């Protein structure tokens, strides 16, 4: 998808002691550089299904953030005790527990949010991003770094879902977070609330995001070259 994308497992392979920079990188990695939706293209089921309104997108994103962060921290805590052969089974058990806890908590905190997200909350367990982070990162890193990675990935996922939800709600219903944006004469573009609208919005965002990343990579390269050339001239 992009030239400077590092393989998912590589950055998590060194169980170094967490310096503030490391911790910061672990957090910001998921937010931008390896955004789960725009870069890794993971968790497409909730991305398509739940983004027909901004409120749903934010609630789903936060629920997923809680699941990733808590299961990452727990898995990291027991990483040295888990034999390789049963690691996936153990991870799934912990993730399923986190999802069940989220299910109860959402129901207890706001039944209205639960009514909207209800069928999708148990499906968090099947979001491949939730299983990918423990396998690629938490099983090889300290609890603190894993927690930050989980939070970063979850918030990156929330950010992406909110981007999609904004486009779909504004165009499909003429509202943002329930408030009318275009006035009474706007004819909602219902297509954007339907599944095809999800695909179209995702394509638009992927295009924008990739174009921006490529543009910034080119600029970075030009800057580096501009710095290198005078140095060479001086040497000559």
């Amino acid at each position: 998808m992009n030239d400077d994308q590092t393989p998912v497992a590589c950055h998590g392979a060194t169980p170094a002691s967490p310096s503030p920079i490391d911790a910061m990188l672990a957090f910001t990695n998921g937010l931008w550089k390896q955004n789960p939706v725009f870069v890794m293209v993971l968790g497409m089921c909730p991305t398509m299904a739940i983004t027909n309104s901004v409120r749903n997108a934010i609630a789903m994103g936060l629920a997923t953030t809680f699941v990733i962060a808590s299961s990452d921290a727990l898995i990291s805590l027991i990483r040295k005790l888990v034999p390789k052969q049963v690691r996936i089974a153990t991870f799934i058990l912990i993730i399923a527990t986190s999802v069940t806890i989220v299910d109860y908590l959402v129901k207890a905190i706001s039944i209205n949010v639960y009514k909207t997200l209800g069928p999708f909350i148990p499906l968090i367990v099947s979001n491949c991003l939730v299983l990918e982070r423990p396998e690629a990162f938490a099983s090889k890193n300290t609890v603190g770094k894993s927690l930050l990675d989980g939070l970063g990935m979850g918030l990156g996922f929330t950010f992406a879902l909110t981007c999609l939800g904004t486009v779909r709600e504004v165009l499909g219903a003429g509202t943002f977070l329930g408030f009318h944006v275009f006035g009474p004469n706007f004819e909602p573009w219902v297509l954007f609330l339907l599944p095809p609208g999800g695909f179209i919005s995702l394509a638009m965002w992927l295009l924008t995001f990739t174009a921006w990343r490529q543009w910034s990579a080119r600029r970075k390269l030009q800057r580096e070259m501009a710095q290198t050339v005078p140095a060479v001239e001086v040497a000559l």
Partner: protein
Amino acid sequence: MNASSDGFKMIRLMTIVSLLCGVLIVGTQINTQARIRRNQEIIMRESVAQLLPGISKQVIYGIQPSGDLKIQASAATAGPRLFAGYDASGKFLGVVIEASERGYADLISAMYAYAPDTQTITGFQVVDMKETPGLGNRISTDPSFLENFKSLDATHPIATVKHGAKKNPWEIDAISGATVSSRAVGRMLQKSVQDVAPVVQRNLNRIKRGE
């Protein structure tokens, strides 16, 4: 020897993790149970209050398999039930009945207000549904569709007709583009009225007294 020791380690770890997960789940369930029940009750009571304007007291009746009514203390209990509403002076306003029917996507659960004296449906509210956003889900928001339920005659079998074709007071004017969901609402009300209205009529004096 090594293989069996590894196997034992794996079983031991899985058992401990499972036990820990079990404790976490059960602990959360126990700690959130009361709040979940309270939330469900608030939602129920709010829906009933919206369907019966001017309400200040509610009595919840569980509908027994024999067709008798039994007063329930909480709205969070399961099973078929109806809500009787009274104003501040204790005057009976009507009953709210729960109903559900399969829609386009999944089950549509709703509540409707029924006036036993005039045998009409006076309000309708969707409690839960997964109908298509922007199309089927308009059954809960479309003002002209909800207008059907301001005074829907329940003495005659309720039927859903094509958008703009409503002629009789027992007909529901469907939403254009959401006919399947509109028809599901019609079927739901017809079935529910058929089952519950006789129970209400039989126990009407008791319900009016709030006993």
